[in-house]
Structures are given as C-alpha cells and as structure tokens.
C-alpha cells in the first residue's frame, strides 16, 4: 500500500446512455493530432456535445445538474474500438475518477487502470435501475468501496455488489495501478528471460 492506493471513492454521477460507445465517440480522431494529452479533456465526447461547435444542451455533459460529476455511468462494451489512450485521458482530464457500467472493452479498461481510473461492472438490470435513479435524482452520489466490492447509492437502501477484475482491484488497493516501478524492479529477471528466448538474435 502506498499513497496511490485507491480503496474507496465517492462522487456525483453523469449518465452516458448508449451501448458499444467506441473510442472514436469518446474522442473523435481528428483531435488525436496532438503530441501531448493536455487538451484531451476539452474534446471528451466532442461530436455528441457540439454540432458545428454549437452546444448540444441535451447531452448530459452539457447539463448543469451533472457539472460536478466525477463518476460516469455507462452501459455495455463501453470504450470499444481503438487502443488510443486519448479516450481515458480525456475522461480523466475532464475530472472523472471512476466509470460504472455493464461491461468495458478490454484495452480500454486496462488503459483506465494505468491512469488510476476505477472501472466497475454491475448486471444489466442494476445498471438500468441506476440510470433511472440518476435521472430522477441527479445530485445523488455514488460511493464505490473497492475493498468491499460494493457500490452505495444516495437514496437507495442497500449497497450493490460490484464486479472488478481481480488483478485491477488488487492493483488499486496496493497503489500499483501504474506498474512501471514494479516492472522495473524485475530488471534482472527481464535480462535473464531475454537470454532464454530463441528469437532475439537469430
């Protein structure tokens, strides 16, 4: 455990409805031509939030009641498509710390973990219930307990059991979601394994 450990987090929620939301929707490709991630937060869901640079007030991210949200509520296969880290970078830089959904694309959830964004899943019917609840009570907060694997919702009586990838859960709890230091600590083993591979110098 270190100061990067994430054992629980709490925040307001913005609902992002839609299934199979791909990384091209999260950050349109034309905004990828930057050599830094600095501006990515501005491009989050750009083509859904703006039409010809005019604000689309129907989009939840443009609605004042969700302005303080730090948790995103999504449906299934969220983040499918490209491996571009620009997508979770945009989400992180727009102030989000966690995403609650029915399922996440493989590369996307790994990229989120590497940035310290917690992704947790719940069954479809629970997700639908949460969408209804957040629509009715936009100010209700979610509390995610990574350690206990539960999600408590303001205004709902019992916490829900959440599913997390076991490896991701442990990495959040012990603060190693950015694995670079751990990977580097095995430097000798890396060199040793490289010597055993048949193909590096043939």
């Amino acid at each position, binding site marked *: 455990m270190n100061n990067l450990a994430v054992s629980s987090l709490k925040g307001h929620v913005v609902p992002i409805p*839609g*299934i*199979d939301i*791909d990384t*091209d*929707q999260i950050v*349109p*490709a*034309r905004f*990828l*031509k*930057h*050599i*830094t*991630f600095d501006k990515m937060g501005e491009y989050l869901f750009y*083509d859904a939030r703006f*039409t010809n640079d005019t604000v689309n007030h129907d989009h939840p991210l443009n609605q004042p009641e969700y302005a303080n949200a730090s948790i995103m509520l999504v449906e*299934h*296969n969220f983040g*499918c*498509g*490209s*491996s*571009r*880290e620009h997508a*979770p970078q945009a989400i992180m830089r727009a102030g989000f710390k966690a995403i609650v959904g029915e*399922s*996440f*694309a*493989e*590369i996307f959830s*790994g*990229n989120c973990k*590497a*940035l310290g964004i917690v992704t947790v899943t719940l069954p479809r019917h629970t997700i639908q219930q949460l969408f209804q609840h957040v629509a009715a009570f936009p100010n209700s907060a979610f509390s995610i307990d990574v350690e206990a694997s539960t999600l408590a919702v303001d205004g709902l009586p019992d916490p829900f059991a959440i599913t997390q*990838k*076991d*490896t*991701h859960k*442990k*990495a959040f709890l*012990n603060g*190693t979601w*950015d*694995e*670079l230091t*751990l*990977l*580097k600590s*095995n*430097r000798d*083993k*890396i060199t040793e*394994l*490289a010597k055993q*591979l*048949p*193909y*590096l110098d*043939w």
Partner: protein
Amino acid sequence: MSTGTLFDKVWNMHKVATLPSGMDQLFIGLHLIHEVTTPQAFASLRERNQRVLFPNRTFATMDHIVPTDSTQRPFADPQAELMASTLEKNTADFGIQLFDFKSGKQGIVHMIGPELGLTQPGMTIACGDSHTSTHGAFGSLAFGIGTTEVRNVLETQTLALSRLKVRRIVVNGALQPGVYPKDVILKIIAELGVKGGLGYAYEYAGDVFDTMSMEGRMTVCNMSIEGGARIGYVNPDQTTFNYLKDRLHSPKDMEKAISYWSDIRSNADAAYDDELIIDGSAIEPMVTWGINPGQSVPVSSNLPKCSELQHPQSAKDAYAFMGFSENQPAQSIPIDVAFIGSCTNGRLSDLREAASIVKGKKIHPKVQAMVVPGSQRVMAQAESEGLHHIFTEAGFQWRNAGCSMCLAMNPDKLTGNQVCASSSNRNFIGRQGSPNGRTLLMSPSMVAAAAIAGHVVDVRKEIGHE
C-alpha cells in the same frame, strides 16, 4: 482455464514474473510504434532521463497522419508535420530504427511488420494500435496497447497483463467463390457480437484457415478486436514458414526457427475455454448496414428487423443514423465513395482481387473511388503488375501508402453524409472523418463491384458464381 494451446505456451515462455496484483509481467519480443500513440511516451522517458531498454526490439513507421496524395515535407497540415518530425526526433534520439518514406519500406505498421519478416510465430508483439491483433496470423500473441503501456515497453520491454481465456473458432468446409477472409471475420463477429470476445483470445482453426493465405489470415486476425477479442491467432504451419522465407528480418537459420515455431502450435489435446464451429461453405459475402462491425448481413438478404435482433435499441439507433429501412434489400443501398485499402485489406492479394473485378470497366459516374496500397512495398509490387493502370483506367484514384480513409487523421475523409463502401475495419459514427458520414464494410472485391454499379452488389454475380 486453457492448457496446451499456443496462447498458453507463448504466454508462459514470456512470463518474467507474477506481480502482486496477480497480473503477469510479460516480455515483449517485438514492439512496433507509429507517430500517433507514442510522443507522450517518449516525453515521459525524457522527463525522467530514462533510456529505451531494448532499442533494437522496437521498430517505427508513419501511417495514420500521412497524406496519400503527396509525401512532400513539410506536410501541409502543421499538426501532422509536428507528429512526423517528433517521431523522427524520438527514434533518432533513442536509437530506434524508423522506416520512413525514403526507405521504400514505409507503410501501415501492421503491413510492414510481416513484410519485413519482423513478425514471427511464437513472439509477443505489442503496438499502440488495436489492430495489432493482425500479427496473430503468424501464431504470435499480438495486441494493442495504450500510451502508458508504450512507455512501459520502451523502458522495461515488458507489460503487466491479465491472462485471457482462449476460444477456438473452427471454420470448416470450403469458401464459395466470391467469399473472402473479410466475409469470414464479419460472419464470426455477427455470430458472437462485438463484445463476444471480451476477456478472450481467439484461436482460428479448421479447413478454411488451413487453406487460407497469410494475407487472408492477417485480414481475419486484424478484425478480432472488432469482436472484442484483444488477440486473435492462427497456429503457424507450412504456409507461415513459406511466407517468412528470405524476408529482411527472417531468421538466418530457418531450420532452427521452424523447429521452435512448430513446438509452439496448440497441442492436439489442448483444452479451450470455449469453442465455436462455423460451416465455411455457408458463408456469403457480407456487408455491414449499421454503426458497429457486428451489424452486418449476407449481401443477398434484406436488412434485419430491429425486433428480431439481440439489441433492438442499438439497431434503431443505427437505422436512424444510416437512414436505411428495415427489410430494405442490402443491394439497394447506393454508395457515393469507394475505398480500397487499410491494415485490414490493403495487401497485394486484396488489390489483385479488386483489380480483377474492375478490369476493363468504369466506375459509376457519381462514385468517387480510391485505392490506397497499405505499404510502399505493396504499391511497388502492384505497379510492377500494372494493377495501378487497371484501377486508374476504371476511374479510381491511385494513392501513396497510409491509413488513409480508414480513420479521420489525414486529408482523406468523407464529407457530409456520404455513404462509403469500404474495405476497412470500423463503421463507427464519424470514423471516416465526417460526423455524419456512413460506412459500409465489405471485402475489397465487393467494394470494387459496388464502385462500378453505384450501389451495393453481390460480387458473385460479377465473377459468374451466383
């Protein structure tokens, strides 16, 4: 849990350690990089004064932002020029080989790895691009990574990964004439859905793969990720070994290499986490009608009814965006643009098949059509066979190598709500550069046939096999 598969063998052989999280630290045998997903990774190394641990295991090229009409530098788009010059500086400073325009070896990163013999069986291969699954065609474990992971590979030549399950997808029988590897993978995605592969690596097997060319296997593995599978692979065989003979980076001692490559094949008694069997002889040419690669139909059918689909709301959204109607015949859909290229279908065999359809014909007057070879090498080979004349005489534009109209990062883009018959891999909203542009995915031969007819057609008619 799977045992005795190629996945298990290659994974175990590359495992450096088990991390406290339970993830495995895997050595990455080959790291491919391009201009879009790497600048921030190199910047991170610079900030901390770190070096690349194995600079000779990383290879670079430029593809995403490359204009295909002229490779003249500086590029007209200053952002594209900055991305290109940043990659040039990073590769020079960190001692990494770059295949640039002058090398004659530039191209889409997933084209050049195989062409140069860098991609080999039994390797772990990573690249900051989801279509890295392409390289699984050789029996490697190849997968897309994010930029933080690119940094990890540069600095440690390893990644922290959670083990995947293995699903074997067996396609038996023989494909009908006019049915191509693209149709096979579109069919597999239609069967399993775009998230069917979450948590899985796909092993492709059966008669259809045993007899498929390396280029065809690359097309199928390329789109594994469109079905949610981060990795897709085919066990290496004589077809693989023949392809790798005499390539620039192929092993000098092929006998020793073939011995290793044969050992890592899945055992006859390997255990899989799941299996799917498909009758290859029943697969028709496929075409997508919606906004994800799972929304496809056989070209001879009508578009589906929302109520009959697993995700009716998603289908309704797709119809609303595409402007098509339930039950409309797929072949009634008019097209405005035809695009042949991309890491899915920009290889020589793709261009040959498409050229055989267009030879002696003219494209429909209202269609704009372009052929973009996937690499400089494919371009040179195609030109040596005169394919460029066949395309240009028919009215196609013949372009330089790059990702082109597969994604919206270079000047090749749809405008307005144009409908594009495309040999690429994604029909997501906005993917081809116009927020309301519409993409129909299909094989390069189907694209060629549609370009001539001005609407979607069954390519089997063109080749006399209906």
